[in-house]
């Protein structure tokens, strides 16, 4: 500890060197260890409100229900709309209301994992809060991260939010049927994403019809 004397007292310089996200990182590791112990794979799903995160999860649940036992942890600021929609498709769903919080963190997900019957599960979807900024910086302790963007959000979703791809392995470009009406070039969205992250797996989807979901399942390795 370095000490300097001033008139009113001694000024001490104290090294702290603490990661401000350190606690979250620790819980990320704990969540992953817990999931691995139960041979469960978890997918963190990010995207803005209305991008089609819930529809995409619904489609994945419908397509995979004979293969895996699944649950979803749905993060939302309020309401249980998303949770109810996923439940309809046959997955066990747990709702996390963040009460205004802009992202899920590893602590919230840990609390959710404690409430799930992990012995009976193979796959967990973590639907993050609809937001393309904050969740990007907060890993929750999932094995993979998928980002969902859609054509109705306009042509600049990727270049305006490059950070969201930092930890993502798969990008679903959703609502491809509306691309023409929205005058959005989906190939350009894909090119923007690959420019930022060349190894990203990019899939065109339509959450309403299920188009592209098989390709998405392949990209996710499910």
């Amino acid at each position, binding site marked *: 500890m370095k000490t300097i004397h001033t008139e*009113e007292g001694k000024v001490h310089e104290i090294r702290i060197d603490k990661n401000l996200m350190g606690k979250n990182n620790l819980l990320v590791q704990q969540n992953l260890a817990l999931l691995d112990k139960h041979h469960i794979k978890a997918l963190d799903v990010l995207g803005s409100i209305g991008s089609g995160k819930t529809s995409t999860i619904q489609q994945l649940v419908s397509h995979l229900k004979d293969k895996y036992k699944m649950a979803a942890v749905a993060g939302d600021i309020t309401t249980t709309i998303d949770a109810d929609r996923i439940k309809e498709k046959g997955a066990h769903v747990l709702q996390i209301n963040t009460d205004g919080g802009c992202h899920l963190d590893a602590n919230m997900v840990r609390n959710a994992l404690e409430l799930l019957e992990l012995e009976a599960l193979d796959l967990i979807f973590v639907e993050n809060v609809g937001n393309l900024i904050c969740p990007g910086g907060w890993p929750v302790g999932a094995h993979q991260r998928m980002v969902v963007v859609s054509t109705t959000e306009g042509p600049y979703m990727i270049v305006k939010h490059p950070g969201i791809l930092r930890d993502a392995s798969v990008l679903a470009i959703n609502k491809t049927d509306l691309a023409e009406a929205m005058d959005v070039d989906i190939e350009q969205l894909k090119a923007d994403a690959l420019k930022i992250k060349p190894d990203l797996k990019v899939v065109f989807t339509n959450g309403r019809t299920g188009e592209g979901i098989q390709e998405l399942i392949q990209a996710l390795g499910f």
Partner: protein
Amino acid sequence: MHEAAIAQSIVNIVLEEAEKQNATRIESIEIEVGALSFIGVDQVRFWVENSFEGTVAEKAKLIFINVKACLRCQSCAFEGDLRVEEDPAFHMSLPKFACPKCGSSKIEITQGRYAFIRRIKLVKD
């Protein structure tokens, strides 16, 4: 507002340390912010200053240091800065999550991913 979570963390660490050291005043706090941490410094400052009101840290100077992002390539062992492309069309910077030398995507971000509270200066009577 993920800045609120970061600000809360800073406030807790500083006030705990102040108590531990019997500080009468916190003079300055040095915070390192990584380029890929997605933290808005102005917002953090606002939240922290608000929370410090009426505490020994009320007059503390908040010093933010921006730290660039660095990577290590697992394919060619390159170590250096993450490439950021300036796109004049959008007036924005696009990070490229790949090795600037060999183009491999098997990279590890070694710096700039997080934010750290590095040191504080405090006064004891």
